[in-house]
Every structure is written in structure tokens, then in C-alpha cells.
């Protein structure tokens, strides 16, 4: 391989976009367009001659290195190109609030996390992890959110009672909302401070 062909190979491999022959002349001060085209031809022949799985392709945007179509199926089967995507910390936190407090409105989520929740709620909804389960009776009748069947499926839970109970978490979650009659007993544990 000539030094120019090497430089061009490195550039086509590393650049974040296809490169034109004109752009490739920038690589070396004394390089003409003809030199670049010769080197590109050399590169193409090398890949073909040694039966590399990659090839040099010229498209509208310029030259790029691509895997040969013959390998597309095997690659798709192996799924190397797609990495399982993960939820962001903000999405997980919002999801956890909804899981434990559902049905719950946006303002309550924002109050707990201390940041606005609009974007996160939209993306959780698009991913099918939460859904609108009703409207609150409060002013403006805001939407109430709950977790979806897909949420249970992804976490491998039979139903919501499979979620660890508050007492099993290292710090119990305290409900900062008006107590229902059932909660009264629990609340009576704590003596009034003197």
C-alpha cells in the first residue's frame, strides 16, 4: 500500500461522513486529485483481491467503506449493530414514581423529583411503558399516569404486587399525601412530640 492509499484508508474509516476525492486531497500537501483517484482505485483493488468483507463504494455524497451486501444477513442475525437501549436515570426515576404511586399526575411527579417531567413522560409514553389511566378531579383535570402491561413484561413481573413493597426497600417510602382510614393505625405509632 502506498502512503497515500494508507492515509485515505484511515480517513475513510475514521471520518464521520463520506468524503469526496477533493476533500481527500487535504490529507497531504503535494497531492493532486489524480493522485487521490489512483490511490482510491488501488484501495478498491486491494479489498477485492484479498476478498475483504469491506468494499470501497462511491455514492452521491462521496467515498465510503461499507461491508459487502453478502454479509448483511449474517450481521442482522447476530444483531451486533443494535445495542439494547437503556433508560436514562431521569426516565427510571420517573418510572419508579409512577410504578409506586399510580395513578399519579404530572405535577406530583415534578414535585417529588424537583424538575419538570414533560419530556420524560412523553418518551416513556412513546416507549409504551406508561399510559394515561384517567383524569384527576383537581383543577384543570390533569391526566393521570399508570404503568402499562409492557412495563410488567420488561421487568418480568406478574403484576404490580410483584414489585418489592416499601418496607422491603432500604428506606421505606412514606406517602406524602392525605392518609386514608387504613393508614390511621400506622400513623398512630408515632407519639406526638412533647
Amino acid at each position, binding site marked *: 500500500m502506498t502512503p497515500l492509499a494508507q492515509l485515505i484508508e*484511515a480517513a475513510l*474509516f*475514521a*471520518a*464521520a*461522513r*463520506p468524503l469526496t476525492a477533493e476533500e481527500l486531497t487535504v490529507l497531504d500537501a503535494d497531492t493532486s486529485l489524480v493522485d487521490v483517484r489512483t490511490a482510491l482505485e488501488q484501495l478498491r483493488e486491494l479489498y477485492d483481491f484479498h476478498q475483504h468483507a469491506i468494499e470501497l463504494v462511491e455514492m452521491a455524497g462521496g467515498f*465510503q*467503506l*461499507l461491508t459487502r451486501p453478502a454479509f448483511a444477513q449474517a450481521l*442482522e442475525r447476530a444483531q451486533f*449493530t*443494535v*445495542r*439494547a*437501549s*437503556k*433508560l436514562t*436515570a431521569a426516565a*427510571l*426515576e420517573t*418510572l*419508579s*414514581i409512577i*410504578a*409506586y404511586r399510580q395513578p399519579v399526575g404530572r405535577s406530583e411527579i415534578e414535585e*417529588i*423529583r*424537583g424538575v419538570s417531567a414533560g419530556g420524560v413522560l412523553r418518551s416513556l409514553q412513546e*416507549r409504551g*411503558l406508561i399510559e394515561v389511566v384517567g383524569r384527576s378531579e383537581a383543577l384543570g383535570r390533569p391526566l393521570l399516569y399508570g404503568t402499562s402491561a409492557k412495563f410488567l413484561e*420488561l*421487568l*418480568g*413481573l406478574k403484576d404490580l404486587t410483584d414489585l*418489592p413493597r416499601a418496607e422491603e*426497600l*432500604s*428506606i421505606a*417510602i*412514606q*406517602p*406524602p399525601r392525605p*392518609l386514608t382510614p387504613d393508614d*390511621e*393505625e400506622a*400513623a*398512630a*405509632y*408515632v407519639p*406526638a412530640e412533647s
Partner: protein
Amino acid sequence: MEQPAALTLPEPPTSALGASPAFVVELEAFSGPLDLLLHLLREEELEISDIPIARIADQFLRVIHNLGLNQAADYLELAGRLLRLKAQMLLPRRSEEDGWEDPRAELVRRLLEYQQIREVALWLGRAAERRADQSARGFLPAPPALPPPPLHVDLLELLEAVQRVIDGIPAPVLHRVVARPLNVEGATRRLIALLEDREEFGWREALGPEPTLSDVLSTLLALLELARRGTVSLTQAAPFAPMVIRRDTSRTAD
């Protein structure tokens, strides 16, 4: 060991509070108080194992004073420690033989440990630079209409998120006090009904099945009230033994 870039001194300014210009440095140039201390030692070509504490403590203070006290909490802590050491070193020691422990030992240990970490940090920095000389494939053409990547969530992650949410709540509501939580009248009625049935029964029977804490407290208060009125007598065979509740015939007979 090579001198890290972070330690290069800026040009010494002219106003130097009596310190030698070499000690006028910028706080931003250091990654922490130990870094500054190491720098001072190196400037003076002093051995870490035998630090002239008094001198170094004064220099350290002078530098910090020079730099202003904003953002210097960590530096002040070490300054305080150095001053304590300075005082300790002035105390008369009895004799070298009977196990005198050098008060500087802990500081020496920390400095050496930190110096070791710094050496590793330099190594990591160089490794990252070498790695940055190599590029991965840059242009990844979008695969034609593949389904979106599978979503991965697991329960542990969710629970960690719950924990973060809880940790983030500024003033968690720890308890609520509800009016009229105790039902002493109800407990009294139940006890009187029991007493009509039986002359003697135990504390557990007094509570009834599956008592809540509220039931326990209500029953205890009711019992104490009944005992005060002379309706029952309460006895225990021994401290912490089960309480026995008996109809108090001696006084009702009066």
C-alpha cells in the same frame, strides 16, 4: 517522576504578602490541598518522611491566605491539621526509646498514598492520550429500516431509581399525627365484657386477636384506668413476666 502539567506555576505576581514569589500560586492549578502540600515540599526539596512541620504549615497558610478563602474549605481543613501537628511537635517528648510515635506519621502516610495515586493518574492520562491516537469507524450508515433496538430495563435499576428519588426528597414526611388515634372507651367496654365472663385472664386475651399498636395502647390505658377504679387487679409473677388480669373482688365487695 515527571512533573504533571497541573503543577506548572504561573508567572509570579508582584504583591506577595511577604512570601517568596515562588509560593504565589493559583488555587486552580492544584487538584487539592495534598497536591499543594506536595508542591511546597518539592519546591523546598524536602523529604516527605521528615517534614519540617512548622515551616511547611506557615507556608501553606500563607499560600491559602494569598489565594483568598473562597472555595478553600478543603484547604482550610488541611491547614488546621498542619497547625495541630505544629503544636504537637513542640510538645516535649520523653525519650526516643519508649515508643514515641511521630505525630507526622499519619500525614506522611497520606502524602505517600496520594503521591502513588497521582502517579497512577499520570499513567492513566498517558494511556488515554495513546488511545486517542486511534479512531474507531466514524461513519455508520443507518441500517435500512431495522426495528428499534430492544429496550432493556431491570428491576434492580428501577429500585435504584426509587432509592434515588427517595434520597432526593428534601424533607421526607416521616410521620403524621392523627387525632383520636386511641379508642380507650372501646377497650374498656371490651374488658368489662370479658370480666363478666371470666374472673381471670391474660394480657394476650385482653388484647384480642391481631391487635394493632393502637389496640395495644388503648387496652393498656383502659386496664390502668380499671385498676385505678379498683375494678381489676394487675399482677406479674416476675419482672417482664406475662401480666395477669383478675377481677378485683376484694374492693368491689366493700
